[in-house]
């Protein structure tokens, strides 16, 4: 049997067993449902208009009630920057301050306005309170101009000021890209760890069930390693693909994903390439670790040290969330242990120059090659022994 056929056999078995496993199906379902819930529910809730009952009493009640109603019907824009289209006021006239307080504390009214100069609220009034403040302020200012002989119509003409123009120097940078880069490093972190650990798990399972002895009586250890890493990697790509497609489909309806002008392709490609590089790098290490122990329970202890660089890279990637490049991020994006998690955010935020990306990719490829060679050399050594010290594995080979 040629070696490609051997690798393919292992790959297909690994892939079909993983896809069939309950763990895979449940985690995919949870991710997809989580994304759909996270994107669609706010979109649905966002369209509902909040109706705010307001009790009004004292001087100027009629005018204020009129203003509140007018704001709700969107006919006049007053202090437009503070207006939220999802709020409608339901003003009601009450006899005195005492009644207004009673209504607010019983919850029948959310706010009460007394003499146009006092707002009563059960707790801190928040953005709805800001709107009312703005309305009362405009009302009071309008009244004083009127007293000074300037009619509301004249005032409106005078106060018709164009809002200031906003000039953005770097279209690429900004909040939306920061969110995208955060999502991507989160995804990479979870994916590399999850599938790397799956490889270790699959190796130690075959070892502890002893089936590995039969498998190795037919194929080379390196081919088993390659088939496993590729099969589980493919499982990972499928799962990530399903999640991304779910997010993009949900985005068609909700449009709240901060995709760049160029569309979702570039970030998806960046994340995919770096996932593959980071995954193969760490999966090889995890395969060796899996081959050194004999029980699944031992995995956690030996797997943890390998997690540390991924974790560090993940935290370093946060430092760029405010839109500024940091030295730590820059350095980490060239080290093969952390580059898969730190380079994609730099690329998405537009920090990395083309030569930097090329250099980092080259270093990563060299790193992957070295780790693969090392793993191929020591992987077979531990498989038929109960438990091997890593140092022993390296000295024997």
């Amino acid at each position, binding site marked *: *049997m040629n070696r490609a056929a*051997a690798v393919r*056999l292992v790959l297909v*078995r690994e892939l079909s*067993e993983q896809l069939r*496993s309950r763990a895979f199906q449940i985690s995919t379902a949870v991710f997809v449902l989580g994304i759909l819930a996270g994107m669609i529910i706010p979109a649905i809730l966002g369209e509902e208009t909040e109706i705010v009952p307001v009790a009004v009493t004292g001087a100027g009640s009629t005018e204020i009630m009129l203003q509140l109603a007018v704001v709700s019907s969107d006919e006049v824009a007053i202090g437009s920057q503070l207006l939220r289209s999802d709020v409608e006021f339901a003003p009601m006239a009450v006899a005195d301050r005492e009644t207004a307080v009673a209504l607010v504390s019983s919850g029948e009214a959310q706010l009460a306005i007394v003499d146009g100069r006092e707002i009563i609220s059960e707790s801190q009034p928040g953005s709805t309170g800001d709107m009312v403040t703005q309305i009362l302020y405009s009302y009071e200012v309008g009244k004083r101009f009127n007293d000074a002989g300037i009619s509301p119509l004249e005032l409106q003409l005078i106060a018709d000021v164009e809002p200031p123009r906003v000039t953005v120097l770097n279209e690429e940078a900004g909040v939306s890209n920061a969110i995208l880069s955060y999502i991507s490093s989160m995804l990479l972190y979870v994916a590399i760890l999850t599938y790397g650990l799956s490889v270790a798990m699959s190796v130690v399972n*075959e070892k502890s*069930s*002893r*089936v*590995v*002895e*039969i*498998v*190795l*009586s*037919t*194929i*080379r250890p390196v081919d088993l390693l390659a088939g496993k890493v590729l099969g589980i990697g493919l499982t990972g790509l499928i799962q990530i693909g399903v999640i991304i497609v779910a997010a993009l489909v949900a985005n068609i309806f909700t449009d709240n994903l901060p995709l760049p002008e160029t569309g979702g392709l570039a970030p998806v490609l960046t994340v995919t390439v770096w996932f593959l590089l980071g995954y193969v790098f760490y999966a090889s290490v995890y395969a060796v670790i899996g081959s050194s122990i004999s029980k699944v329970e031992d995995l956690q202890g030996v797997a943890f040290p390998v997690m540390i660089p991924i974790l560090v890279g993940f935290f370093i990637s946060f430092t760029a969330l405010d839109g500024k490049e940091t030295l730590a991020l820059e350095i980490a994006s060239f080290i093969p242990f952390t580059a898969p998690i730190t380079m994609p955010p730099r690329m998405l935020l537009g920090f990395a120059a083309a030569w930097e990306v090329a250099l980092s990719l080259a270093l990563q490829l060299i790193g992957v090659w070295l780790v693969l060679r090392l793993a191929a050399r020591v992987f077979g050594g531990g498989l*038929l022994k109960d438990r091997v010290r890593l140092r022993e594995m390296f000295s024997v080979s």
Partner: protein
Amino acid sequence: MATTHLQLRDLHKAYGPVDALAGCSFDVPRGSMFGFLGPNGAGKTTAMRVIFGLVQPDAGEVRYLGNPIQLDDRLRFGYMPEQRGLYTRMGVLNQLVYFGRLHGMTREAATESAMGWLDRLGLADRAGDKLEALSHGNQQRIQLVAALVHGPELMILDEPFSGLDPIGVQDLGEALLEQVRERNATVLFSSHQLDLVEDLCDEVAVIHEGRIVLDGSLAHLRATSPIRMFEVETTASDSDWIPEEWRDLVTNRVRGRVRLQFPVGDGIDPDAMLDRVRERAEVVAFGFEPPSLSELFLSTIESADAEGQL
């Protein structure tokens, strides 16, 4: 004379200070049922792993049909390791097909063969079940099928009978004999059940401390053995009738039946021995025969140990 199927040539393997194999050599004739015997820790499992390339020997080689063994030769072997193991969470048929394909079969051929075996074992209706859903005995049957599904020319089975009930032992023995008779396949297996080996095997090799101390055809080994067994049953209720000079030769005594081991030599004469007993007790039955395999085994190990101590 049958061709030599597999040859182990002067294999050496040391694990630290322990010599697991110290010059292990023997030939396995094609189409034989070959018993590979030895006390625990004698090197049986290491030798089998060397055959499959799972352990690299420090010296020596394994030859298959006269040539140094290659990776592809091993695809025509079937292996049941000492430590049993299958994929517990994988479907029964799926994993048998996988093992068949690992040995170079097409999916179709592997499926057909696996279903044939499952049918024969009465497990066809469990083909889709996960292995862990099967009983222990049925899992062992699947383990055997995993070693046989690709129709191997040579089967290497480490303790295939251990843990089987008497019916399982009989079924497995028949299945292996059938492979030898119908396909001229070779079966090499290790076992501590020497009576069973004696019933099944035509060839044996005994390994002790990494070296072969006895090997060849069982009939030949028994006939040329340096010992003979004299068994006599008397009506005597005690053992006083046993002559003084025979006392050290007794290997077994059950009720009135006494079994003695004599070295082959000039003085060995069954008639004279029987007369000697008749002088002292009433004989009910008697026999004179070459040693059984288990007696051969024990005497070989004892004399090897005695030599080792010199």
